[in-house]
């Protein structure tokens, strides 16, 4: 395509990496955050593993931080919609990897994928009561 923006184009035949796949959804559907309260079966087990993933800087689960916007389990595939507290988060790759690994620890889940979403925006209001309690114990000042 001829245009004013002639940066080198990506190879159209290149194999897409999972990194690219993270970005194919920008907007979460449904109420956020999702916490898996009414999940059953395999999904419930995935939620249990997600709860074990903590923020790298604070002893609080990423689920209680309100970062998980959705979980979809289809067959042996899990898709997690998730946001981050901060757009410049330096632990981005680390957290995304940990979430995928957590979901894949469940017997019956072969492949897990995280889709990073930025809307609706995250704020401290999305932290669950349990999460707020953990943060207070850690020494953070919260209402």
């Amino acid at each position, binding site marked *: *395509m001829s*245009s*004013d*923006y*002639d*940066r*080198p*184009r*990506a190879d*159209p035949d*290149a194999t897409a*990496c*999972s*990194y*690219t796949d993270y*970005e*194919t959804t*920008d*907007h979460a559907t449904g109420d956020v955050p999702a916490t898996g309260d009414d999940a059953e079966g395999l999904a419930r087990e995935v939620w249990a593993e997600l709860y074990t993933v903590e923020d790298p800087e604070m002893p609080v689960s990423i689920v209680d931080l309100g970062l998980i916007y959705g979980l979809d389990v289809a067959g042996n595939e899990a898709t997690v919609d998730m946001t981050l507290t*901060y*757009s*410049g*988060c*330096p*632990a*981005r*790759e*680390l957290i995304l*990897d940990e979430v*995928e690994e957590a979901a894949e620890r469940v017997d019956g889940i072969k492949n897990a994928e995280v889709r990073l*979403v*930025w*809307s*609706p*925006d*995250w*704020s401290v209001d999305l932290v669950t009561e349990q999460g707020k309690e953990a943060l207070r114990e850690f020494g953070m000042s919260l209402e």
Partner: protein
Amino acid sequence: MSTTNADLGEPTELSEDEQRAVEAQLFRLADDEFIQAERYTFWQVRAPTLESDLAVSNNAQDELGHARLWYDAIQQLGYSEESLIYESDPSDFQHSTLVELPFEEGDWANAVVRAYLYDVAEDIRLSALEESSYEPIRDRIGRIQGEEEYHLEHARSWLERMALDDDASERVQHALDELYPYALTLFEPVGDVEDDITNLGIRSMSLSEMHTEWADRVESFLTEQGFEVPTDAEPATPIGRDNQHTDHWHSLHEEMTSTYRNLGRNEATLLMDEDDE
């Protein structure tokens, strides 16, 4: 201005003209934020106090995060991170020349004035993108606005304090006279694609409308602090948006990409590869 434009749909659904206009908007967002961040990092151990070191480092990290959000959106259109950053020619970049100028050690007023002029423009641009007809732009705005609020507050509070000191005011005034013409390049067009950006509802305000609002806000605040705003200035040249840059950019680009080239890289390294344990 309200827009009645239809949603442009998924990245893969864009027509050639739509994609060209979306890219034109995304590239300036990404490049401005990226280079502004890169220059801020100069101050992270040189600002007047430890608190200001931390504040400016944090602002740099925010801008890098925002640049990443915009480059991610560009990647959905078929570009790779390597091609966008490390393998791009310096003249492919379209940031305003305001953000590429180097800082002189000790000239903190210059950093504060630059941040202020840039952040007001950024604030106006983000508002004009809130209802964008392109969802990947629309969906990123809220997060970025929340973080940008602090940048504006930081710049304004420094200007208010510096206005109270004779020596500091003089340096602010000097920086303002120097940087204002460069800040005007933020509102310069990249080419005839500009009309499509507003006609397609990608952005709700024209460059000239954004310029007018910016000039009013900047003049009103700075005049109140006792500064003289050079409102009759013309945009500095080169203007950046047309891919023409100052020599400072070429040396900065050389520096930014030197490790990638020296190590013979052909892919960008992430903090942690996905296959790592």
